[in-house]
């Protein structure tokens, strides 16, 4: 058993003991499950990301129940499949908040889906955990954001790569919010470190042919390519890059590669050597993670998901929430905020995580890793990185009513 679970176990048995002393009236309430919502794409374009998240989400529920549930009540997952469709996101979010009256919701993958459902949960006062690495800037006390933001990742990987390869950078990015903001951060960090971004190119998410870009990159002769390319169409870039024999000539650094199952879809020859930066890799070396991965394997022996930051963080979300419920002895939002804002540090598979009370974003360890034979090897770790970007625009302590997604301008 891992540390966190041993601790959880003691606490929950304590809670159970306390409950058994309580009046029979409470015992009846014990039969009522606490509902938790899971809103991940299980079909459609994003299912390859959503399905592992959902698997881990279900596993977390099972673990909580095996440890005796919460407040003496079992936890029940309410799972809907928004089918990679924004209007279904908004419907199911409403349904979870209004009809199912879930205590908390984990979910949303793209920023678009988050901005669809976040206002709904805000309006109906349903606690919401967004567990994806994203461009930063959400300022909403109702949302707990555990994924990494550019100030945590880009800031680390840029100097690392510049040290290794050189100072001239060619940025290619997906043509949407995330890509634009990330590339702005890239430019800033490259310049802060005395380098130069020679070109920034944006690609619509449905572009799958990159021949012209590959020629242009060759003409520009950068020291490395920084990719913030997203989605399955953009995978074509890595293949065509390798196909042109460029892999051995110009290295690739990515801020987002490996959030989904990219490293498994590319062959080792195509993927080897790509550098990336996340808050979690399977290779993170601590006993909590080893045990976590073993449990994932045991829970899904046939279809073991590849765990990336996005699914590990979903697990984190459930664990942090469960811990707060136990400590607060309540599922009320306000009580849980108080626990989570206390600066408590959680010992999780990804390392030590705490929640920044000003932004409700995670302060967490960040890793740089290199892909070798479809597995990321950790090169360097940066403990306790702050979500500095969101901190620039958001202070929930001063303004607890904030409800906005800031676009951080640089």
């Amino acid at each position, binding site marked *: 058993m891992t540390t966190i679970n041993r601790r959880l176990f003691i606490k929950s048995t304590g809670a159970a003991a306390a409950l058994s002393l309580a009046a029979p009236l409470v015992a009846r309430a014990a039969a009522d499950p606490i509902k938790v919502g899971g809103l991940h794409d299980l079909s459609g374009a994003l299912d390859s990301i959503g399905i592992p998240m959902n698997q881990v989400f279900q596993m977390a529920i099972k673990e909580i129940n095996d440890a005796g549930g919460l407040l003496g009540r079992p936890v029940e997952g309410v799972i809907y499949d*928004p089918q990679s469709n924004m209007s*279904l996101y908004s419907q199911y979010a409403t349904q979870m908040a*209004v009809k199912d009256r879930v205590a908390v919701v984990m979910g949303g993958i*793209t920023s678009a889906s988050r901005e*669809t459902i976040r*206002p709904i949960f805000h309006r109906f006062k349903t606690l919401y955990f967004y567990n994806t690495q994203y461009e930063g800037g959400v300022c909403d006390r109702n949302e707990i954001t555990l994924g990494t933001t550019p100030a945590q990742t880009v800031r680390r990987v840029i100097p690392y790569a510049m040290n290794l390869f050189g100072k001239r950078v060619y940025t290619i990015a997906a*043509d949407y919010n995330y890509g634009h903001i990330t590339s702005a951060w890239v430019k800033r960090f490259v310049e802060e470190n005395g380098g130069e971004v020679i070109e920034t190119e*944006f690609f*619509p998410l449905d572009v799958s042919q990159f021949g012209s870009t590959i020629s242009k990159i060759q003409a520009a002769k950068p020291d490395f390519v920084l990719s913030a390319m997203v989605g399955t169409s953009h995978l074509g870039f890595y293949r065509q890059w390798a196909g042109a024999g460029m892999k051995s000539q110009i290295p690739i650094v990515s801020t987002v590669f490996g959030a989904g199952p990219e490293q498994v879809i590319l062959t080792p020859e195509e993927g080897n050597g790509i550098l990336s930066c996340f808050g979690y890799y399977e290779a993170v070396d601590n006993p909590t993670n080893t045990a976590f991965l073993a449990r994932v394997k045991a829970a899904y022996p046939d279809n073991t998901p590849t765990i990336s930051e996005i699914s590990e963080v979903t697990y984190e979300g459930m664990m942090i929430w469960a811990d707060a419920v136990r400590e607060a002895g309540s599922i009320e939002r306000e009580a849980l905020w108080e626990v989570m804002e206390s600066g408590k540090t959680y010992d999780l598979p990804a390392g030590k995580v705490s929640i920044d009370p000003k932004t409700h974003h995670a302060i967490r360890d960040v890793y740089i890793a290199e892909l070798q034979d479809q597995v990321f090897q950790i090169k360097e770790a940066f403990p306790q990185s702050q979500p500095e970007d969101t901190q620039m625009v958001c202070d929930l302590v001063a303004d607890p009513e904030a409800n906005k997604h800031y676009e951080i301008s640089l």
Partner: protein
Amino acid sequence: MEKSAIRDPGFYLMIAIGLAALFIGPLVVDMFTIMQVTQYVVLSVFALSLGYIWGFGGILSFGQAAFFGLGAYTFAVASINIGETTIPLILSFLLPAAFGAALGYFMFYGKLSDVYLGVVTMVVTLIFWKLANHTAGPEYVIGKARLGGFNGIPSIPTLNIPGEPDAWLDPAQLFQVFMAILIAVYVGLRLLIASDFGRVSIGIRENETRASLLGYDVRKHKVIVFSIGSGIAGLAGAMWATYQSFIDPNAFGMEMSAKALVWVMAGGVGTLVGPILGVILLQWLTLKLGMMELLNSFVVLGAIMMALVLALPKGMVPTLRGWALTGWTLARRGRGAARAKKPGEEGGAG
């Protein structure tokens, strides 16, 4: 089909059902259901826009989403800038209608027809979709509204009472207003179809050559029909934007156009009730499938669509009508066997 609306009992039945839902619905049904039904109402208006131009004008558009999206974005941009919603709602009808007229002029005066017409409308939709997706950068701002690219425009205001920008409608009121719009669109289209203009449109659908050989300007007629349909689709887009309080480029998506086709097709081309039924049935199904953790929603939905086309090629409403008619005839024949055969109805119709 050409039965005058004023004489058709079904017409009054539909209005009655609509009014009943409008007034009684919020009293007897819970808030969540009301919000769900609001969605069906919005999409029904959208389906009617295609049901009208296809079923009663013979214009098959694969790009109805272009106008839906245009209406939605118009409403979003205008309401964020103006700070109230009445003028934006009107604009979201007028602008798509004007654009529809322009595109219609381009197509019908160019004698495009058939599949080619479909593809041009589809291409236009794709262009909108691509451009809308390309507006992620901070330079794409209209007044106070950031277009937002792929992520779309969040925080679109809810409808307010005309003249009182701060009097926002609650979900039940929103439902009532939308229901009223749906009834108005339905009644408007029925009356339009029953009018001489509508009858000429039906004539054009039936035989374009004859219509022009009678001296009707087919091209002009089609442009008008197309433009009306575009305006209604735009209105539906605006309703969608305010209902969801956000809008993204998927409003311009192929899927949106295709869905409209499926609703109309499943419900029955050449009816107005059909598209509405199509929306209710298929949207309900999509929603339920996502909640059921069945195999995979796409498999089930795809199979149902194929089954619908193969089993009910005319759509639900005409098929049911056919069955009802056959049943009625059989019953009458059974009863009236003893009676003398009735002569066919004669004389002029209204």
